[in-house]
C-alpha cells in the first residue's frame, strides 16, 4: 500500500531563510508518529504543506499517493488542527456541525462524549471560550473527524495537565477502535512518548532523526561516578557528552546495556541512567547543523534491533 505521507527533498524558503531544507521521510498508514523539535524547526510549515495550505519551493509531497495542493479528493481524507485554530463567529455546536459536513468519517457520538469530557458548553460562542477551551474544541474536532490522516500541530495551548491527559487517553482509545494515521507535532515529549510508535525529529528545517520510538529507548546511558571508573566503563563506546568536576565525571555513552553492565557498574560504584526519549530528542536536535549524528542514532537503533 502507498504510504499515508511521502515527502522527498521537500524545501520551502522565505526570503533567504529555509523553513524546510530537503526534508525526506515516509509515514506508513495506521501509526501514530510524533513530529518533534524546537520552536522554529519547521514543523508547522511541514504540516501546512501536507494539508495543502502552503506550497513547497522544491521537492515532492504525496499524501495517499497524490499531491495535496488544491486536491479535494485528498484533502477531504485529512484534518489539520492547529495550535490557535481560528473559528468564525459561531457557537460551539455550530462549529461542530460545520465540521461534520466536511469530514466523511465524522462521529457525532464521539463529538458529544468528548464535549462532556472537556466540559465544553455547546451553546457558548467560540469567541467567549478561554484559550484552553478553544484548544479543546480543536481536539474534539480533530478526533471526531476520524479522518484517515489526522494532523495535530501542538493542539493544546492553554490546556492544563489533566485536560492533556484526557486528550492522550481519548486519542489512544479511539485510535485503538478506529486505526488511522496520526501525526502529532509536540514539544511535550515526555507526556506523549508512550503514544508514539515512530518519531521524526526536526531541527532548523531538516530531519535529524526518524526512527521507531521503542528502538531509541535505552540506546544511550548517562554514566556518572569517579572519573577513572567512568572512563573504564565507557571505554570503547561512542560518547555524546562528557562533563567533569574534580574527580567526578558524567558521560553520555551510546549502546544498549546488558545484565552484566549493571552488575559491573555497581561494583565500580557508578550510577547508570538510560536516556529518556525526550533526552534523546534534545540530544539529536542539539547537534551542529553539518554534523548531525542521525547516523550514529540510526546505527545505535540498528544495534538494538538486531540484538
Amino acid at each position, binding site marked *: 500500500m502507498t504510504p499515508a505521507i511521502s515527502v522527498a527533498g521537500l524545501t520551502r524558503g522565505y526570503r533567504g531563510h529555509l523553513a524546510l531544507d530537503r526534508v525526506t521521510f515516509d509515514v506508513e498508514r495506521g501509526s501514530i508518529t510524533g513530529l518533534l523539535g524546537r520552536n522554529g524547526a519547521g514543523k508547522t510549515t511541514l504540516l501546512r504543506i501536507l494539508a495543502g495550505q502552503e506550497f513547497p519551493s522544491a521537492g515532492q509531497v504525496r499524501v495517499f499517493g497524490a499531491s495535496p495542493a488544491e486536491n479535494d479528493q485528498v484533502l477531504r481524507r485529512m484534518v489539520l488542527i492547529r495550535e490557535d485554530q481560528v473559528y468564525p463567529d459561531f457557537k460551539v455546536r455550530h462549529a461542530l456541525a460545520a465540521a461534520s459536513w466536511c469530514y466523511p468519517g465524522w462521529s457525532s457520538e464521539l463529538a458529544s462524549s468528548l464535549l462532556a469530557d472537556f466540559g465544553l458548553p455547546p451553546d457558548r460562542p467560540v469567541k467567549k471560550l478561554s484559550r484552553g477551551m478553544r484548544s479543546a474544541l480543536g481536539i474534539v474536532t480533530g478526533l471526531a473527524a476520524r479522518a484517515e490522516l489526522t494532523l495535530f500541530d501542538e493542539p493544546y495551548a492553554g490546556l492544563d495537565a489533566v485536560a492533556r491527559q484526557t486528550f492522550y487517553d481519548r486519542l489512544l482509545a479511539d485510535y485503538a477502535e478506529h486505526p488511522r494515521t496520526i501525526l502529532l507535532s509536540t514539544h511535550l515529549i515526555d507526556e506523549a512518548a*508512550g503514544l*508514539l510508535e515512530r518519531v521524526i525529529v526536526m531541527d532548523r528545517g531538516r530531519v535529524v532523526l526518524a526512527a521507531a520510538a521503542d528502538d531509541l*529507548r535505552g540506546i544511550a546511558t548517562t554514566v556518572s561516578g569517579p572519573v577513572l571508573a567512568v572512563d573504564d566503563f565507557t571505554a570503547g563506546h561512542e560518547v555524546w557528552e562528557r562533563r567533569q568536576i574534580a574527580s567526578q565525571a558524567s558521560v553520555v555513552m551510546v549502546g544498549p546495556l546488558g545484565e552484566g553492565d549493571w552488575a559491573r557498574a*555497581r*561494583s565500580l560504584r557508578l550510577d547508570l541512567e*538510560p536516556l529518556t526519549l525526550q533526552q534523546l530528542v534534545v540530544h539529536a536536535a542539539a547537534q551542529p547543523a553539518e554534523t548531525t549524528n542521525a547516523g550514529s542514532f540510526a546505527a545505535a537503533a540498528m544495534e538494538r534491533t538486531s540484538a
Partner: protein
Amino acid sequence: MREMAGLDEGAPLFAQLAGRLAEEIADGGLAEGDRVPSTNELAAYYRINPATAAKGINVLIDDGLLEKRRGIGMFVAAGARRRLLEERRQQFTERYVEPLVAEAARLGIDTDELVGLIRAASHAEASYTQEGITL
C-alpha cells in the same frame, strides 16, 4: 509527566511490558489458562501505543508462554509458570548470589558470617510472612 503505570523510558516499552506479564505469570497473578488482557486493554492501561503492546504480547507468544485462540483472545499456556520459575532459578546465582558475595568480600564479611546473616534474614522473613497470614 507521563503516566505509564510503572513502565519507564529507560528501555524499550514492549520488552518492559513482556517482562511485566511474565512476572505476573510467574507470581501466579495470571494463572495458566487465564485470559490475558487484549492488546487494546493493555495499551489503554499502560497508556502506550497499541502496536507496542502487540509487540510485547508477541514476545510471549513466540516464547510459548501465551497462546492465541482465534477469535477469543490470548491465554496463559500450560507449563508457562513452571518454565518461568525454572528460568529465574537459573538466573538466581548470577543475579543475587554473586553480587552479594562480592559486596561481602569488599566489606570483609567472611563466608561463615555471611551464612549467619542469611539465616537471620530468612528467619525474620519467615516470621514476617506468618504475621502477614494471621492478619
